[in-house]
């Protein structure tokens, strides 16, 4: 290190604790408490990155989350790499590796810098005006545009870190632990409110905590000493929770806020494993006090972007807080008193200040006098017209401002420097306030937007409310809190404040230069390289709304969201168009306030926790028996059970055959089950199903079809009458929750007079379905006490039974067309009943089958699957299920819609069977059906909904929907595939056992 830039420091940096880190491959040292920015400055490094568009060299500009330029990639080429990290925010830790972004081959020599020379032909919106020829070439241009755009690099490996969420409910939330926030927190907590105080920094006290000037005193103590005592006191209050390194990202309606608590970004990588990286706090606060402070404004003048140009307040903070001098020859440029605070701080630390350029002509305050007393040259009524030095500022030239501030006069003076501090006054940080729906007003005297109307129970206090000076803050804040919290008395009523700050300011949004504007580069948005010229160009071209200007010039659309430049953009628009600032409005401040890591937002909902997996009580058996699974809604269903290396086709053929030849067993537990009770249960079913229910005898089962009110098939299933006023309804697996919701809706809102109660019992029962010619033999072995004769226990009936001591319900119902039984038993006995069936079925080669075989078997019988053979455009009539639509019933859900002009059309798509000419050819589900492939445009009559090779029929079978299909029996149609045409014949959808003999076999 050639220079010693570490000056006598505050106690906020631990100089005994050295930390090494790497920047662009070289190793450097800093101290505990340093940010990457302060450590780089300590090492005399200003050049950190390149700008977005022109690839201009850029340095550290601020000391906070508003930083537009000094953004880096951390830990390149590792799984913990992260793009676009602000050097001003990241605390250094042992082993930190950072590198510059958006430059190649290096930040010192960047090929992209050529854009800077091309900048005359790259004004705002240039890309809208060119790259259009030849027409097909845009993607080729775009390839290069994309390559040069973007900043850092996306990670390419999964994230090793973990994140979590936490809900917090508090009485009072205080955002920002500066002096106003501390006063608020202490007051709220001491008055019994459950209080949460949040600050994005690792320490409390905001900017007052490093304010060591004799010019700012509270009750005769230097302000930082006074505040330190207050902080020590609040740390002891029990009902006050304090969270540092926590930034509020979003302020939504109803005082719902999101904050990110950063837990490991400041510790060495090897210590991070198994620790939570970020915690997303979801805060619901009864009251919110926003004390987010203010951001210093830059000044807009020619070449105001060079490395070595910083906000004046940042220079002060680097000196006072981190004990780092940003330069050895400092010049300050200001339009207000803030820069003098900086000058005096630097002077106090022995850092040289060459000059202060103040655009105010007549200024007079204690601070200025004090500065001049220390032999610091002050140029009053001057402006900077240009800066020099490519990778680090080395000189400024200044000129006198005309009276109206629109021109420069006199001759140019050059001042050598290696650092320029700029201060354009302060902008209240109203971002969160406006996110919450608050309305702003414009205060003309100092050209700031401040809160006007709150949309929820909240206030803004301190400088985010436009009270900038110490005396203003301490006179307004206690009063505001007292009123807001409805207190009789408050600790902070009498203060003796010494504040030497004079509020005068000469606001010139765009400072004049000796060159014409067209030849200058006065940056407004540093990251996106938008200049004042670009804004004027946009206005010239008719973009008048601030949102238009923003979008056309990309001002405010960088990763800093224009925290520094947005006000100047507005100001320049206002000046150019002659409209009033207050009437222009601001652009919307969109959440998050500072960018929020996706992982933080997602929290624990990754990997297996992405969504719940519902598993049946028999699931483990399926796993042990090597089943493949299918996702059906949230359920995991056994799909097929491959044996000895079978593929799916072979397994399904084997399973299907076994089920028809002897016995098959299916886990049907996932079907939705709704318990329906009440004296009006039958009437209720009459209204929700298309068919009639009143006459269903106790102990009998019936298949029902449920429609939407628009007449389209919604769900289906078998419902069993368990008692006079008691039914159990089954629904499809995927439809269970929505069906229950829909039934509750009708019951509660349309038919509250019905005495009916609905309870979901899907998870309470396991359902084992045994089918096939030998099913009776198997089930009767398990339930020996039950009379399984067809007379006592016919198809579509149910019996209460016992397996051992355990009650179960046995339904003789069938979705396969085979003689079959469904045993419903309390879920925790499900696996054991299944195993009993397997045991009892051994001699009959009982074969477990999955959903795929179930689909095949039911297709052989022409049974529909709602959602596969229907698609929310099918009525029961379309399905050729007219038999299930009661003509007698006065009304049921969806009935009226069946008689609209379109739904009664004869040529609607109707469900039919399809047989291929070649019995071995299996159609593709989803394939389209046509009658004439030569017709153009080709007319699609419908599509194949279900298709299988049936091992029982030894041919391919399919179901499909075809326009007017009902009347096309036997007709030949064509399935035009990409590479061939398949001839099919329209057939009866029931392919097997039309007489239903097997049900009673």
């Amino acid at each position: 290190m050639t220079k010693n830039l570490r000056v006598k420091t505050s106690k906020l940096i631990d100089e005994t604790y050295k930390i090494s880190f790497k920047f662009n491959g070289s190793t450097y040292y800093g101290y505990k408490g340093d940010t990457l920015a302060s450590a780089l400055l300590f090492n005399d490094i200003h050049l950190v990155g390149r700008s977005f568009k022109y690839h201009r060299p850029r340095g550290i500009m601020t000391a906070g989350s508003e930083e537009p330029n000094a953004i880096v990639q951390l830990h390149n080429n590792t799984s913990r790499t992260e793009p676009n990290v602000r050097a001003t925010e990241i605390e250094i830790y042992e082993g930190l590796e950072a590198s510059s972004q958006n430059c190649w081959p290096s930040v010192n020599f960047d090929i992209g810098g050529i854009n800077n020379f091309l900048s005359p032909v790259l004004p705002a919106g240039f890309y809208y005006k060119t790259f259009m020829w030849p027409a097909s070439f845009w993607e080729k241009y775009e390839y290069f545009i994309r390559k040069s755009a973007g900043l850092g690099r996306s990670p390419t490996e999964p994230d090793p870190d973990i994140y979590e969420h936490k809900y917090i409910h508090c009485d009072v939330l205080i955002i920002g632990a500066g002096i106003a926030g501390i006063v608020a927190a202490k007051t709220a907590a001491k008055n019994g409110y459950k209080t949460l105080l949040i600050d994005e920094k690792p320490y409390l006290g905001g900017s007052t905590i490093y304010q060591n000037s004799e010019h700012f005193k509270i009750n005769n103590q230097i302000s930082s000493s006074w505040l330190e005592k207050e902080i020590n006191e609040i740390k002891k209050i029990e009902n006050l929770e304090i969270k540092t390194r926590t930034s509020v990202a979003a302020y939504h309606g109803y005082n719902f806020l999101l904050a990110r608590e950063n837990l490991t970004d400041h510790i060495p990588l090897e210590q991070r494993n198994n620790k939570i990286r970020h915690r997303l706090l979801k805060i619901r606060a009864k009251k919110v006090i926003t004390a987010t402070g203010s951001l210093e404004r830059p000044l807009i003048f020619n070449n105001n972007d060079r490395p070595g140009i910083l906000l004046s307040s940042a220079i002060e903070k680097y000196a006072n807080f981190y004990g780092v001098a940003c330069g050895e020859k400092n010049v300050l440029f200001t339009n207000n008193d803030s820069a003098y605070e900086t000058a005096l701080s630097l002077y106090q630390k022995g850092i040289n200040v060459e000059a202060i350029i103040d655009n105010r002509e007549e200024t007079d305050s204690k601070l200025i006098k004090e500065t001049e007393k220390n032999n610091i040259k002050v140029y009053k009524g001057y402006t900077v017209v240009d800066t020099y030095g490519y990778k680090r500022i080395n000189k400024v030239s200044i000129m006198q401002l005309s009276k109206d501030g629109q021109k420069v006069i006199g001759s140019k003076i050059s001042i050598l420097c290696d650092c320029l501090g700029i201060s354009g006054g302060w902008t209240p940080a109203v971002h969160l306030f406006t996110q919450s729906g608050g309305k702003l007003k414009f205060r003309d005297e100092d050209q700031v937007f401040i809160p006007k109307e709150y949309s929820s129970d909240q206030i803004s206090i301190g400088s985010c409310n436009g009270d900038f000076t110490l005396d203003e803050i301490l006179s307004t804040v206690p009063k505001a809190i007292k009123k807001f919290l409805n207190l009789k008395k408050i600790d902070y009523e009498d203060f003796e404040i010494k504040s030497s700050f004079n509020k005068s300011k000469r606001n010139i949004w765009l400072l004049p230069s000796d060159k014409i504007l067209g030849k200058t580069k006065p940056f407004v948005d540093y990251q996106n390289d938008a200049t004042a010229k670009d804004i004027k160009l946009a206005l010239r071209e008719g973009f008048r709304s601030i949102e238009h200007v923003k979008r056309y010039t990309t001002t405010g659309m960088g990763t800093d969201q224009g925290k520094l430049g947005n006000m100047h953009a507005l100001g320049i628009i206002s000046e150019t168009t002659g409209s009033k600032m207050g009437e222009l409005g601001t652009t919307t401040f969109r959440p998050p306030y500072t960018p929020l890591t996706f992982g933080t937002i997602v929290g624990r909902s990754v990997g297996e926790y992405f969504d719940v997996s519902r598993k049946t009580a028999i699931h483990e058996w399926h796993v042990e028996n090597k089943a493949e699974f299918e996702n059906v809604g949230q359920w995991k269903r056994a799909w097929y059970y491959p044996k000895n290396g079978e593929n799916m086709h072979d397994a399904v053929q084997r399973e299907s055959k076994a089920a028809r030849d002897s016995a098959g067993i299916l886990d049907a537990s996932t079907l939705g089950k709704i318990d329906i009770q009440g004296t009006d249960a039958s009437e209720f079913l009459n209204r929700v199903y298309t068919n009639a229910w009143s006459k269903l005898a106790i102990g009998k089962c019936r298949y029902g079809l449920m429609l939407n009110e628009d007449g389209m098939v919604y769900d289906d299933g078998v419902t069993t009458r368990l008692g006079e006023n008691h039914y159990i309804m089954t629904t499809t697996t995927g439809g269970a929750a929505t069906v229950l919701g829909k039934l509750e809706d009708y019951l509660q809102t349309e038919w509250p007079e019905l005495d009916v109660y609905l309870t979901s019992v899907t998870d309470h029962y396991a359902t084992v379905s045994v089918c096939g010619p030998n099913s009776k033999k198997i089930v009767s072995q398990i339930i020996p006490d039950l009379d399984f004769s067809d007379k006592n226990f016919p198809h579509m009936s149910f019996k209460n039974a016992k397996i051992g001591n355990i009650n179960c319900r046995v339904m003789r119902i069938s979705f396969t067309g085979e003689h079959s039984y469904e045993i419903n038993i309390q879920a925790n006995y499900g696996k054991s009943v299944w195993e009993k069936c397997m045991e009892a079925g051994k001699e009959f080669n009982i074969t477990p089958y999955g959903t795929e075989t179930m689909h095949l078997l039911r297709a052989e019988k022409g049974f529909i699957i709602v959602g596969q053979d229907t698609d929310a455009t099918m009525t029961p009539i379309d399905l050729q299920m007219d038999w299930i639509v009661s003509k007698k019933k006065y009304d049921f859900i969806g009935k009226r819609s069946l008689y609209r002009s379109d739904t009664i059309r004869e040529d609607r798509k109707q469900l039919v069977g399809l047989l291929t000419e070649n019995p071995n050819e299996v159609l593709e589900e989803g394939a389209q059906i046509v009658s004439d492939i030569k017709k153009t445009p080709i007319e699609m009559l419908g599509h194949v909904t279900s298709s299988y090779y049936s091992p029982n029929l030894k041919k391919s079978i399919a179901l499909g929907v075809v326009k007017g299909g009902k009347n096309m029996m036997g007709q030949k149609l064509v399935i035009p595939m990409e590479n061939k045409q398949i001839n099919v014949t329209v057939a009866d959808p029931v392919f097997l056992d039309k007489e239903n003999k097997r049900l009673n076999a």
Partner: protein
Amino acid sequence: MKNKYSLFSLVKNAFSYHENWEKAWKDPEPKKEYDAIIIGGGGHGLATAYYLAKKHDMKNIAVVEKGWIGGGNTGRNTTIIRSNYLWDASAGLYDHALKIWEGLSQELNYNVMFSQRGVMNLAHNLQDVRDLKRRTHANRLNGIDAVYLNTEQVKKFCPIINTSPDIRYPVLGGTLQRRAGTARHDAVAWGYARGADEMGVDIIQNCEVKGIKRNGESVEGIETTKGFIKTKKIGVVAAGHSSVIANMAGLRLPLESKPLQALVSEPVKPIIDTVVMSNAVHAYVSQSDKGELVIGAGTDDYVSYSQKGSHDIVEGTLNAILELYPIFSRMRMLRQWGGIVDICPDASPIVSKTSIKGLYFNCGWGTGGFKATPGSGDLFAHTIANDEPHKLNAAFNINRFVSGDLVDEHGAAAVAH
């Protein structure tokens, strides 16, 4: 004739420091009367005016916009353009639009950056596979360039997708439409505005419609914050606020306006060079020319005009993004925002005349209207000029809600067994 935009004109203007560019559109005060007025200065509205002037020789027309042009859903959407729709009517409509997109930059002399980087739709369960195959077959027969991809082909086309069979909802396949892609949303509004303005259309911003004046069953004009403007034809293209305008005319529409959210990440170097959509785990993502990941979320289930949605929706979307792209976990959300979409019960739009003579509605585009912008404008202009729909938008009439002849693009109902 306006200055032509070109590289040459950029270089030429560089010599005068870009101080001689003329206005892209004027900022006129409204005239007393127009032959037609378009309510709503978004992409669809401006396109409608452009085609009325260009193809139907109606020059005395105005577009009135409450705020600034392109400030509604045009400037808030995720800019996906595709035409791989299931039903013939939809395929016809959206492919008509896609064909115009393919030459739009040249037609408007404004680079709308239509980038045919392809759109993939992923399947995550067996019913998705059936549905996507069905759609692909229908697309092929309708002349739309969609193909079905298996999981390996999906991975090959977009290597950063997590196609592991071990994730909660593995990718089982997908479709790809190569002609599909994205465009620069603002440029579409601005390009049409510039083109319309050149042909004499008045684009009147900051002009809010307060009422629609009717004489019996015909319209007579509109009341606005800039006074009464007389006209015999009103085309309403006020997405989000369609029902509000309809109420002024005493009409009811089958619409609900709901919040729809989107977000972008910080910009990074190219990492994904196509558009990937997944309905089952609800996430769609592309990367803008600037480098931001552009991510669309779903709608909330309640009516709202606040342009704000609930955080749960954003969270759910990012859950899905990280499920499919675990590498994005350390990327950061830069901005999130909301728009208002009006949704029809069948998820298809209304581009139709109404029971009131001279009153036309173009609405109900739900979450997917951007892609249709040029086609919608063209067909709506045809409908207004001729008082009859074009054959491509005939199916999208209001009467379908009475007859039941819906164009149901919801896709399949809930997967059920």
